[in-house]
């Protein structure tokens, strides 16, 4: 059996699954320290289901620890940012566009050194090893033990970042290093920002992984545990210690993956209505569509893979105010069960409206009997409008699309939503997010530029698919189950080469000792290149990959 846990802004949910079957679940308020809420939820599920801890073969956790740390500027390490690019990039040093208080929290230690590549693979300037050694000594003398390294065009050629990391590791044996090309994409500042955020979360990542380990031991669970990543796949505890930023926004992703699993839909719109906010996102071949523009985290622009999610202030605890009628964004949150009218409280909430209209039977319906029928009707109209506007905003065409409703606040929506071909409220909808964590697979992704002048398109695609599959296997996927779920091919304009950027994503079931659940899996094996969504040209079309033959003026 697997235990899935997902931490939301209002509630922490745990679910126990046997294959594809939900054995039990529990919802508890999210605690300020996050971890105690997680253990409460897990413990309660085990007690309620009376399943012995030894039956658990894997634990999957989607947590907000790391996003919270950045937003609250807490438990962040002093970090040095080293950028290889001189003489280019000098006018905009690392962290130049950060909120000053966050920059100061991690010490504002930045080093610009020579190195980096041009778009066509030429070196901007050679790597100066003695320069990097000097930087390393300075970092060491300041007692800094977290380092982020970025180099111009490292997504095209990562060799300078890797060599610099070796040199620094040699000089400072106990340092932890984040490399920008492993985390972000084209766009130097945003990629560098992601690497610095990752680096400064190093200590916290180790502490959290350790605390989860301890908690599992206390619960007598001996299974390995995994953290949810924001692309809907899992990472091992060891990996999580190195790449904590990849957990950012894993919550909405888990909900969407859970919705796909519960409904069997692969291409659909998912609305997850929580206690305070709702998230809308689109599923493409069973996975969330990725955001194509810079995503702001705690005031920092980043560009690594994130689900494209639109959030709005509607939840079960949303406060309904009158004259003018307004739903949210204020919410009573998890206090709904004491402050809502139907629970004996005095605050009119969205849940009270649902109960008053007969859509839901929760708490004491008598408490809302006296509500003005017109008010109830108008509030329902407003809720409907909020959902419809959000859904329409996330759609990519006028074509109707299946709509899956999940989350505790699903009771708020009963009428047909405009633009939906069908509406599904799957079983276990309140804990779709924890289910999404529990059923998650492991994946591998490759994202590279191929010069088609040297490699025919078919071979380039085959090579990319192989690389992605190999990475999935290395991440712990059962080889037999690996499939390609996404192929994205973008020809590059503006630049003088017949180059194409190919991104391939492969996923497979976790290789556990026991049979793994049959998951709804996209039959990606003949996946054709997907039409690219409207993209920002500046960000999504990196230049050609360097290769000896294309150096210097290929046309």
């Amino acid at each position: 059996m697997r235990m899935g846990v997902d931490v939301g802004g209002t509630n922490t949910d745990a679910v126990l699954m046997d294959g594809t079957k939900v054995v039990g679940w529990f919802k508890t308020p999210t605690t300020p320290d996050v971890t105690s809420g997680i253990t409460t939820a897990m413990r309660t599920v085990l007690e309620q289901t009376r399943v012995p801890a030894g039956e658990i073969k894997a634990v999957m956790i989607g947590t907000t620890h790391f996003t919270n740390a950045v937003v609250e500027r807490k438990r962040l390490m002093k970090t040095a940012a080293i950028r290889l690019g001189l003489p280019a990039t000098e006018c905009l040093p690392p962290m130049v566009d950060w909120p000053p208080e966050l920059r100061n929290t991690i010490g504002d230690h930045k080093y610009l050194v020579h190195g980096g590549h041009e778009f066509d693979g030429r070196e901007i300037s050679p790597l100066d090893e003695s320069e990097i050694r000097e930087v390393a000594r300075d970092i060491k003398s300041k007692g800094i033990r977290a380092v982020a390294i970025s180099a111009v065009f490292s997504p095209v050629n990562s060799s300078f970042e890797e060599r610099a990391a070796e040199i620094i590791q040699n000089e400072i044996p106990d340092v932890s290093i984040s490399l920008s090309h492993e985390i972000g994409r084209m766009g130097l500042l945003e990629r560098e920002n992601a690497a610095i955020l990752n680096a400064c979360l190093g200590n916290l990542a180790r502490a959290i992984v350790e605390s989860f380990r301890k908690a599992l031991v206390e619960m007598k669970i001996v299974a390995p545990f995994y953290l949810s990543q924001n692309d809907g796949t899992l990472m091992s505890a060891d990996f999580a210690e190195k790449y904590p930023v990849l957990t950012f926004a894993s919550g909405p992703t888990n909900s969407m993956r859970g919705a796909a699993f519960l409904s069997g839909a692969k291409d659909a719109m998912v609305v997850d209505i929580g206690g305070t906010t709702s998230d809308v996102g689109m599923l493409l071949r069973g996975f969330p569509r990725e955001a194509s523009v810079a995503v702001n985290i705690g005031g920092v622009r980043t560009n690594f893979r994130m689900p494209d999610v639109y959030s709005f202030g509607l939840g079960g605890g949303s406060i309904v105010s009158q004259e003018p009628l307004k739903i949210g964004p204020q919410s009573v949150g998890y206090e709904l069960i004491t402050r809502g009218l139907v629970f004996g409280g005095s605050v009119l909430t969205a849940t009270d409206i649902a109960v008053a209209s007969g859509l839901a039977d929760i708490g004491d319906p008598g408490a809302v009997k006296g509500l003005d029928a017109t008010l109830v009707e108008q509030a329902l109209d407003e809720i409907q409008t909020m959902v419809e506007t959000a859904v329409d905003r996330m759609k990519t065409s006028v074509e109707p699309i299946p709509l899956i409703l999940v989350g505790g606040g699903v009771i708020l929506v009963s009428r047909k939503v405009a633009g939906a071909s069908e509406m599904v409220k799957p079983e276990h909808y309140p804990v779709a997010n924890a289910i999404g964590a529990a059923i998650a697979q492991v994946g591998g992704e490759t994202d590279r530029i191929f010069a088609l002048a040297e490699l025919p398109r078919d071979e380039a695609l085959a090579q990319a698919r192989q690389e992605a599959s190999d990475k999935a296997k290395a991440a712990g996927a059962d080889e037999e189950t690996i499939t390609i779920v996404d192929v994205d091919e973008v020809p590059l304009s503006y630049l003088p080469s017949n180059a194409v950027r190919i991104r391939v994503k492969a996923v497979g079931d976790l290789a556990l000792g026991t049979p793994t659940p049959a998951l709804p899996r996209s039959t990606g094996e003949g996946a054709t290149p997907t039409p690219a969504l409207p993209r920002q040209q500046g960000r999504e079309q990196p230049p050609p990959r360097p290769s000896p033959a294309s150096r210097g003026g290929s046309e």
Partner: protein
Amino acid sequence: MRLLHPENVEDIALGAAVLGTGGGGDPYIGKLMGIQAIRQFGPVTLLSLDELDDDALIVPTAMMGAPTVIVEKLPKGDEIIKAFHALESYLGQKITATMSAEAGGLNSVTPLTVAARLRIPMMDCDGMGRAFPEIQMVTATLYGISSTPFAMGDEKGNSAILNTINNRWTERFARSLTIDMGCTALIALYATTGKELKQWGVPNTMTLVEEIGRTIRQARTSKTNVVEAVRKVVGGFEVFKGKIVDVQRRTEAGFAKGEAIFEGVDEYASQTLKLHFQNENLVAIVDGEVVVSVPDLITVLETESGEPITTESLRYGFRVTVLGIPCHEKWRTPAGLALVGPRYFGYDIDWVPVEERYG
């Protein structure tokens, strides 16, 4: 004459997106560069045309290259300095001031870095009053000002001065050199005297973009209607309000071309607007009738936030308001229309001033 500080630059970059009419490039990097340069070298003096000596030498500056590369290989910051010095010795005269060639998009803010570093003023004018995609599309061309001598420089300290027989060759050489320089370069072109600039410059455009930016910022803070505030400050007309229902795109000869279809709401319900774009928004057609076309400006703003929408980010589902803004009178001449009118961009339609339809 007044001084530009970092907060002015924030507003200028915000306003520049409105006059960018969907194109012109993301001002983000240029804005950060301008702010950094001002922090390091002090505020930039903004000079109006009437404060300029007739014998002054003004050289507009801009960034050239692939947008993909500009966000990756950030500039060093002094790329243009060597090129400027080379240009000065070539012309045998000191450069008095720099200016923006286009008030819309990235290059509205590029000259700030140059002005701060060289401690020379930036002019409160530009050569378009908006954004356009090609080198010759500036009002200077209408007055016979040559784009050459054309200077360019890279972060390594290389610089070049081009003399060409026409703008086609300038474009061609500049493009080749830019690729050799790593697909980004700082350029200086259309060197002009104070007397000439008073004739061809589109006046007060830096002040205008700053005012647009400030208006957006203040309207957002006070939660008033951002779109209406922008419309007032630019002296434009509301052409349409609706929702994007379809976007078609294709790349032709290096241009991102396409059409977007908007379905009307409120008083525009049951109407349909078709927007043609090529990097910038060029022609707006409502129910088969052309309502605004180049050189008048077509700006698409998100109805709720007032955020200007670029042609790259047009997407199904956006709720938008379309504004038509009269272009500068210099474009409204036969020569101006021949250079940047609808026919130049391949649309076989006559230009009709936007205010004739809506005024």
